[in-house]
């Protein structure tokens, strides 16, 4: 790279989406995500893509679902209140297996809450916000550069697994301006949804293929298939046959849960010799890294597990990292939404939550103090 570029997390997300091949954006303005819409409004028409501002977030989800159904890579960006409105149609995208990306730049709730301040309180909304049994992929980046790469990965995973993917960016990262370390000539690896070779041959839109992900043919390309949010058979038509329903609902979860090796991503820092582990994600993981540096300097053996993929939760991998540790601490800007997951897989290791829900960041000093208290 020639010059040092300083850009904002939200802009890195928009650039990542474009690099991934997104050519359709529909959205409704909401702080702290609006810069993504503004960037797409300016850029997409110039490259022949489509930008549309819809009447609300429900409509925005509807529009990207429609665009995805006709074969486009589509996404929207919002924050907590808008994400709540999107939940019904998020489930529609899950059961109809339409790839798309929903960016939630998290602010503190409930309700209008703290519109301009950071939070990580939509983590469980991303997991269980839509009704019904389902699996979901959610990713939470911790820097501007990582936001770019993880946005590309979000699109790739959406396409690969024919599923919606949620990108959970906390306001701090969304609005952070920092060095953007992506070489000008960087060419990302792009995944496009799998299709069929012969479109005229009998197409089975929800075929039980060995990889659990059926091939896709866009609507309006000569194959008259049917998409419905009702439970459906392999041909896509409504079925209430218990065997058919059971098989399809289990497959929807399995195609994600059985591929954790591919989907889950985390980083570890000094975990091997550590007595105490920090588990963190998003902007808080940077604070945790800083606390770790200070504690290590004092000779206290602390390690860090930095989660990048939040859902599906990397149960086994995390359980292994935790095994034999004296204690684990989960600092996060909510009342313990990932803490409860870590505690669930800790198998007897003591896990402590460190919560902050006042719109302020958790400081390294707070983590240092808490570690010392726990030890």
């Amino acid at each position, binding site marked *: 790279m020639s010059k040092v570029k300083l850009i904002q997390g939200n802009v890195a997300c928009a650039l990542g989406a474009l690099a991934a091949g997104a050519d*359709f954006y*529909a959205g409704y303005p909401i702080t702290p995500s609006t810069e993504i819409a503004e960037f797409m409004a300016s850029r997409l*028409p*110039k490259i*022949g893509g*489509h930008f*549309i501002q*819809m*009447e*609300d977030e*429900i*409509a*925005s*989800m*509807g*529009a*990207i*679902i*429609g*665009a*995805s*159904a*006709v*074969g*486009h890579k*589509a996404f929207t960006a919002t924050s907590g209140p808008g994400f709540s409105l999107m939940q*019904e*149609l998020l489930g*529609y995208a899950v059961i109809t297996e339409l790839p798309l990306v929903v960016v939630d730049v998290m602010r503190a709730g409930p309700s209008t809450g703290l519109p301009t301040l950071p939070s990580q309180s939509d983590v469980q909304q991303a997991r269980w916000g839509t009704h019904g049994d389902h699996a979901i992929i959610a990713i939470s980046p911790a820097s501007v550069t990582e936001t770019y790469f993880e946005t590309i990965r979000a699109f790739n995973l959406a396409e690969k697994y024919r599923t919606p993917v949620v990108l959970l960016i906390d306001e701090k990262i969304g609005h952070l301006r920092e060095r953007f370390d992506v070489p000008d000539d960087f060419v990302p690896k792009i995944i496009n949804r799998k299709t069929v070779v012969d479109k005229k041959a009998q197409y089975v839109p929800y075929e039980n293929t060995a990889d659990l992900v059926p091939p896709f043919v866009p*609507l*309006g*390309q*000569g*194959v*008259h*298939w*049917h*998409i*419905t*949010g*009702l439970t459906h058979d392999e041909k896509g*038509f*409504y079925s209430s046959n218990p065997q058919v329903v059971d098989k399809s609902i289990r497959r929807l979860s399995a195609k994600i849960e059985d591929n954790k090796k591919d989907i889950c991503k985390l980083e570890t820092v000094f975990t091997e010799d550590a007595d105490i582990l920090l588990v963190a994600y998003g902007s808080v993981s940077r604070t945790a890294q800083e606390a770790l540096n200070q504690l290590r300097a004092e000779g206290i053996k602390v390690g860090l597990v930095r989660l990048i993929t939040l859902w599906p939760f990397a149960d086994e991998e995390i359980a292994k990292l935790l095994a034999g540790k004296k204690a684990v601490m989960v600092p996060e800007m909510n009342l313990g939404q990932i803490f409860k997951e870590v505690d669930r897989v800790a198998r007897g290791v003591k896990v402590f939550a460190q919560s902050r829900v006042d719109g302020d960041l958790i400081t390294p000093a707070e983590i240092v103090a808490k570690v010392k208290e726990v030890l």
Partner: protein
Amino acid sequence: MEAVYEKYFRDNIPHIWCAGCGNGIVMGAFARAMEKLGWDQDDTVVLSGIGCSSRITGYLDFSTMHTAHGRALAVATGVKMAEPRLKVVVFMGDGDAAAIGGNHFIHACRRNLDITAVVINNYIYGMTGGQFSPLTPFGKKATTAPYGSIDRSFDMVELAKGAGASYVARGDVFHVKQLVDLLAEAGEHKGFSLVEVISACPVSYGRNNKMAEPIDLLMQIKKDTVNIKAAQNMSEEDLAGKIVVGRHYQADLPEYSEVYADMVAGLQKGGEGR
């Protein structure tokens, strides 16, 4: 006629609709309108919301999408924006379009994307068993209006006109030939078109309102409707309580995906757009 049905219907009929339901009449009229228009089924996407009427997409031999309650127009907007080459038709029930989907409806009218919207108005929530909708006439009974509805109802034609739709018509399931013509005309029209179809639900509406026999509702529709041409020479008194059917409005207005394409073309020539 058989050949028309064979061409446009999937082979999964019988359908779920009750005997005497107007939905089948609308579906038949749509097939005949398609035959008139000669659209390529491969280039046509048909969408619907949720309700008895919205099950129509399961039976039509096109690329079809049965969406969520009230959201069909939002999804259709994405389809048409992303692939303007496609013909897009959307079927909705009265609750679907005017209650839960009311916001999407007025904004779809306003944008004027080239979408043909068909609202099958049976005055009731059919699928959930007969609750009143925003189109249930004042005083009519429903399971959630056991003493008669005290809600004022929308006039879909006026709503669509006010919101900016560029083609607005109303047909009914008694005058089927007219309905076929209106559906074809709406399809032909460039821009957002609405065809409201006054329909019959003997089971959830008729039974609550002393018109349980399918023929009762059809006769009532025959009696209540007056063609827009005849209506022009009628006094306001004569028109009271009448349902005016026919083409109500048509205007040549800029179509949204074309306006967008113009902006894109301008930008790609190096301009700054409009």
